[in-house]
């Protein structure tokens, strides 16, 4: 059965075109995906991301558990509120999910995991906790909703709608979070713009969404969320990586420290299997649209596109791709699209940041 977020009725009232996304009935767009995309780059917009699952981890061994569970090093979280992006791997080094972990206090963390993988992730975490006999509790927080407000004017408009949150959230640097009354406000996001991700009790979500609307924040669907994250060069689970893909081949090497003595699930496999591909960006020089699974022909062998779209900001097609190790930034490659072979340029996989084109 399709699941619904607490804002489902609201999306329908706003005229959203709804689609199934990982088993959730979610808004694809509210009229025009491209206009929504531009709104986030130029002003701001808000996304219902309540399908994602917040998981509270608490207990004397919470830190010890995370040190083994995820590939990034949770010891990097020294300050309260600091957030860390990480992959969670299986024993063979495949990516079970990517997630964000927030350090709330000693022995207290909040994880945010993907919607489509939530049940699998929770089962995996519970099994590891039992296996390692550590003292911690894992509590999925389905009683919470999440609204992401992103764009150059996002913060100002959130403060206008929720003035009581300003004092606590204004000093936050990127990738931090703070609790303000009922709200857990984080400076994380999935668009390459500044803004907040606000986690709040589900029963308050409609009221807060309404206040944000009244502050002039436009609702944005998952369609624009995908073009925004792709322009920002951010991976999508299930598309750019999954359980069969090494994080080293999916552009996630920066999140993994193989040198440190710390042991974590998947480390042995990663050490035994060095990277076999580079994860890079493609900018299509010819007319057309790059899509997932298209074949890329380079001077050093073939590669494959994992995500592709038309970039509304750049007005040309962009993609993330797994390419041969010898591929260099700036070289041109050919992409097979239907019966044609089109020319693309290899670039760093971050196309747009804070409204500015980087390629």
């Amino acid at each position: 059965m399709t699941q619904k977020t607490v804002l489902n009725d609201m999306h329908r009232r706003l005229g959203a075109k709804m689609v199934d996304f990982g088993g959730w009935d979610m808004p694809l767009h509210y009229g025009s995906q491209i206009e929504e995309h531009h709104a986030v780059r130029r002003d701001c917009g808000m996304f219902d991301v309540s399908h994602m699952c917040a998981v509270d981890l608490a207990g004397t061994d919470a830190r010890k558990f995370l040190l083994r569970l995820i590939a990034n090093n949770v010891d990097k979280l020294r300050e309260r509120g600091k957030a860390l992006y990480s992959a969670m791997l299986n024993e063979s080094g495949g990516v079970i999910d990517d997630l964000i972990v927030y350090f709330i206090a000693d022995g207290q963390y909040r994880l945010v995991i993907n919607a489509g993988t939530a049940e699998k992730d929770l089962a995996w975490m519970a099994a590891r906790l039992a296996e390692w006999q550590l003292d911690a509790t894992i509590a999925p927080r389905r009683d919470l909703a999440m609204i992401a407000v992103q764009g150059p004017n996002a913060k100002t408009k959130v403060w206008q709608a929720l003035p009581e949150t300003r004092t606590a959230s204004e000093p936050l640097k990127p990738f931090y979070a703070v609790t303000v009354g009922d709200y857990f406000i984080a400076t994380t996001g999935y668009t390459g713009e500044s803004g907040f991700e606000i986690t709040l009790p589900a029963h308050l979500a409609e009221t807060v969404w309404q206040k944000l609307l009244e502050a002039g924040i436009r609702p944005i669907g998952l369609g624009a969320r995908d073009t925004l994250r792709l322009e920002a060069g951010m991976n999508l689970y299930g598309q750019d990586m999954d359980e069969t893909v090494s994080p080293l081949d999916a552009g996630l090497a920066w999140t993994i420290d193989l040198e440190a003595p710390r042991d974590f699930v998947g480390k042995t496999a990663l050490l035994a299997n060095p990277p076999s591909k580079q994860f890079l960006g493609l900018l299509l020089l010819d007319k057309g649209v790059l899509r997932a699974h298209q074949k890329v022909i380079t001077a050093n062998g073939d590669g494959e596109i994992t995500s592709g779209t038309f970039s509304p900001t750049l007005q040309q097609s962009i993609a993330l791709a797994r390419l041969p190790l010898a591929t260099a930034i700036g070289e041109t490659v050919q992409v097979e699209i239907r019966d044609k072979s089109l020319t693309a340029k290899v670039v760093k996989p971050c196309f747009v940041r804070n409204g500015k084109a980087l390629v």
Partner: protein
Amino acid sequence: MNIPSNLKYTKSHEWVRVETDGTVTVGITDHAQELLGDLVFVELPEVGKELAAEQEAAVVESVKAASDVYAPIAGTITETNPAVVDAPESVNQDAYAAWLFKMKPANPADVDALLDAAAYTASAAE
């Protein structure tokens, strides 16, 4: 749904207008553009290309996906519309003004077998 009564249609969401010179003009319906969402790329056939009925003639791509446009009847491509290649969004704005290509039918009577507005309305509602 916006389905003008003076046009002919296919189940695959093309509209067809018979011109006074006997050629047919082809585009995608308003319903089709709405299903596809914002169009960002249109690829049109070569003029002179001969196509069978229901053969792939053009490609329209939205942000989300690529979709084939089929020849509604057998015939030869006589003209394509460069304006939609330059501005794919014009199809979203007015699907019946933003035509894609014109064909000379192999057999003019083939047009009669296409759906009328009422039949297309029923078909599109399925």
